[in-house]
């Protein structure tokens, strides 16, 4: 669990840390769409340059980003090899019936690989430089229009925020319970699969019991402090647009325009 990088926040004071979470979230989402504009090597090169610049700007070492890709590497390689093996066209190097390795296949594989890794890198940039609670605020803001459809947007964000507050507490607690059971002679990560599954019970049951207790306490605390689910609430947390935020979104538009200019017209590798 400790190895997962995507979704973690690294405290820092970089330019990217200071950008409004809404701008970052919008930029991150638009990047995924912009990716689909690229269709030749020069456009992919521009995207890679952009991605690396963002990674550098975040002030987090490249090694951490690479660690973030690692858990997903097999999924990526699997998809890429399907692309390579089942795309025909261009110069053919190997031909075994339905399976061919062609120049188009190789190039397409490379593009797919680029897309995957760049999506991971850029979303990691967003989460590494944004506090989870700020992301929640951003999601809340961007979902506001859905209120008209009677979706309980504010309640959902409060739920998210509370969940985020409990994650570190529950991780701490997991550690404590595991230590306690280790001290009673449990050795984790040893034995056959059924044996290992059996060892989860002494961790899971205490965690479940204590989480229920916490949930009840928290519900009481919320009620005593005047929380009523359907009442209008003001918000103490404030998001403020600044010039840099507008600049950030403008940069994304610029990126899209550049890619449109550089892409190959009417020619697709799909």
């Amino acid at each position, binding site marked *: 669990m*400790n190895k997962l990088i995507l979704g973690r926040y690294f405290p820092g004071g970089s330019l990217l840390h200071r950008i409004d979470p809404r701008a970052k979230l919008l930029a991150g989402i638009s990047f995924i769409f912009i990716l689909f504009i690229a269709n030749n090597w020069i456009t992919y090169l521009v995207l890679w340059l952009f991605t690396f610049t963002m990674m550098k700007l975040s002030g987090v070492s490249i090694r951490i980003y690479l660690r973030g890709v690692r858990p997903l590497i097999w999924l990526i390689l699997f998809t890429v090899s399907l692309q390579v093996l089942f795309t025909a066209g261009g110069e053919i190097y190997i031909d075994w019936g339905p399976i061919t390795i062609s120049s188009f296949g190789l190039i397409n594989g490379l593009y797919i690989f680029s897309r995957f890794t760049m999506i991971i890198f850029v979303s990691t940039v967003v989460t590494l430089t944004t506090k989870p609670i700020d992301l929640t605020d951003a999601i809340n803001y961007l979902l506001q229009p859905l209120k008209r459809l009677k979706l309980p947007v504010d309640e959902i964000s409060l739920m998210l925020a509370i969940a985020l507050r409990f994650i570190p507490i529950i991780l701490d607690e997991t550690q404590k*319970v595991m*230590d306690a059971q280790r*001290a009673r*002679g449990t*050795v984790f990560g040893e034995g056959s699969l059924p044996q290992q599954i059996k060892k989860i019970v002494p961790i899971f*049951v205490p965690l479940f*019991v204590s989480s229920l207790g916490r949930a009840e306490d928290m519900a009481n605390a919320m009620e005593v402090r005047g929380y009523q689910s359907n009442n209008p609430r003001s918000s103490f947390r404030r998001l403020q647009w600044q010039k840099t935020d507008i600049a950030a979104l403008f940069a994304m538009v610029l990126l899209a325009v550049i890619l449109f200019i550089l892409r190959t017209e009417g020619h697709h590798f799909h």
Partner: protein
Amino acid sequence: MQINLQQVTADYQAGPIRSPEILKSISTTIKSGSFTAVVGKTGSGKSSLLKLMNGLLVPVKGQVSIGEIMITSENAKQSVKEARRKVGMVFQFPESQLFAETVEKDIMFGPMNFGVPKAEAKEIALEVIERVGLDATILSKSPFALSGGQKRYVAMAGILAMRPDILVLDEPGAGLDPKGKKEVMDLLHAWHKERGLTTLLVTHDMDDVALYADEVIVMDEGRIVFQDEPERLFSEMTAIHQWGLELPQARKLQIRIEQEANVRLPRICLTLDKLADALIEAGLA
């Protein structure tokens, strides 16, 4: 069973954050049969010191000896298992580790992990549940149906059932009312005496140190800065302040009386009984 630490340095890793040298080159000997209190500010390394005793924390450098067992960073995988057989650890709020359907099964969990046959583990469960002062009928109940105090005793019984030679206690009375706390401490202290155990107790309460410990270790910033009898610790007023410690209630009152009456009582009094005796002896009361 004697505990010996030789220049032990340890790190602590939680998530991506690594705290380097939470213990800095610690060397000490804890005598067999002693009841040693470990005190110090929050974050001074007390809990880490406890975790060394059964390999929940493995030294990066140096070695930990538990009797004949030696734990080093190289042999940890095997030696830690042996150490856990010898060391019983009562965590803070131990009731939060209960999980089994019945009290009996929960108590048998530890012994059976260490290879005690089922029939024998059952016998042990019966013996320890009575030893901690609960009725044998409780064995067939679910631990979650018990009161808070009973749960604590069941959790402690689960540790005592492992028949440890070394007992490691992390604030076993935390969260209980004074009467409940005294009962828990008296029980553990009696068990310690009866079985000739070597016991380590982490506490914030200096009255516990005064009442139960025959030796006290003070931790400060990952180092052992003091190790001697409690009477000696509580006579070093400036050092106590510097390490962020308190005085036992009796000792604090003694100092106030000595200052205001401008007398000196015949000896350092750490407990109520000793203070009462000294006051009468000195002709003040």
